[in-house]
């Protein structure tokens, strides 16, 4: 794999399923895995599911994780600790959908992991409504 991969972690399985199809249309060449909802399908996140998602798309070029809310972050950090040590995994401090969109475009260029994280985090500042 010559591209940074992406993992989306949300409290809802539907949200990450939708994000994945949205981004696939934009850039099918970036590997994307998702973890959403608790293991009974309820609203929440699950560290083991996140770890599996990361491992399923991890490549030497690295993996960037985007998450929705605070407790998804706690479980993502825990998932990273539960998994193999020394992997290149970064969590982006970015809006999950907007950041994910910018990240998939940047990853599609073959950019390195720092650039992909930067693209995701810059999405914060992007004006969504143009002023005229």
């Amino acid at each position, binding site marked *: 794999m010559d591209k940074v991969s992406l993992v989306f972690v949300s409290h809802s399985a539907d949200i990450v399923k939708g994000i994945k199809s949205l981004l696939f249309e934009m850039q099918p060449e970036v590997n994307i895995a998702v973890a959403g909802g608790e293991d009974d399908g309820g609203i929440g996140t699950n560290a083991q599911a996140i770890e599996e998602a990361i491992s399923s798309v991890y490549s030497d070029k690295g993996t960037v994780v985007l998450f929705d809310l605070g407790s998804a972050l706690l*479980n993502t950090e825990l998932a990273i600790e539960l998994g193999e040590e020394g992997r290149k995994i970064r969590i982006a401090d970015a809006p999950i959908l907007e950041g994910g969109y910018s990240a998939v475009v940047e990853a599609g260029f073959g950019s390195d992991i720092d650039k992909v994280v930067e693209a995701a985090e810059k999405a914060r500042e992007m004006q969504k409504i143009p002023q005229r």
Partner: protein
Amino acid sequence: MKITVKEIEAWLEAFREEITAHKEELSDLDQAIGDGDHGINMARGVKEMHNLLETKSFQVPGEILKAVSMVFIGKIGGAAGPLYGSAFMKMAAEAGTKEALSAEEFLGVLRAGKSAIVQRGKAETGEKTMVDVWLPLLKKFEGKQEIDWDDWENSAEELKNNTKEMHAKKGRAAYLGARSVGHIDPGATSSYYLFKALADTLREGS
């Protein structure tokens, strides 16, 4: 006082009873400043823990703590899952393979749990989370060879009640800003039950 597998099992079983008895209270507290699931989350976790304790037998405290950490990580959910799960994981590491722990050693184990919660959640005291029970309680009893369990329980209760006047800065309640004031934190409350269960177990056993 020596803490072995027997005391740990009794403590965790007492914790399960507290959570089960106060499931609604915990969810109601969470309804006020969160999403209303803390009681459900905790009850799911301790139920699975109970199944584990029933079906497996353990040699040393560290072994139980480790197995319980995996249950909490997998089953509690929400923010509380990774927090309690991380706490028990670090407690297991601190307990290591010792068969029996002195009161002082056991306080060290609990402090390892506290550090894990702080490291995981990045909360400081005063931010209206379970940290507001764990951190000051363990600080107060640090270095003690003998523990006055009534004092312990009362301190824990007071600490969780103190979260009422705090303005939440971490977790879902932080979204409420100043409106979080006036409600006791659910996670601080479940942690209070954890420490109350410990007092009840070791007070009787002493």
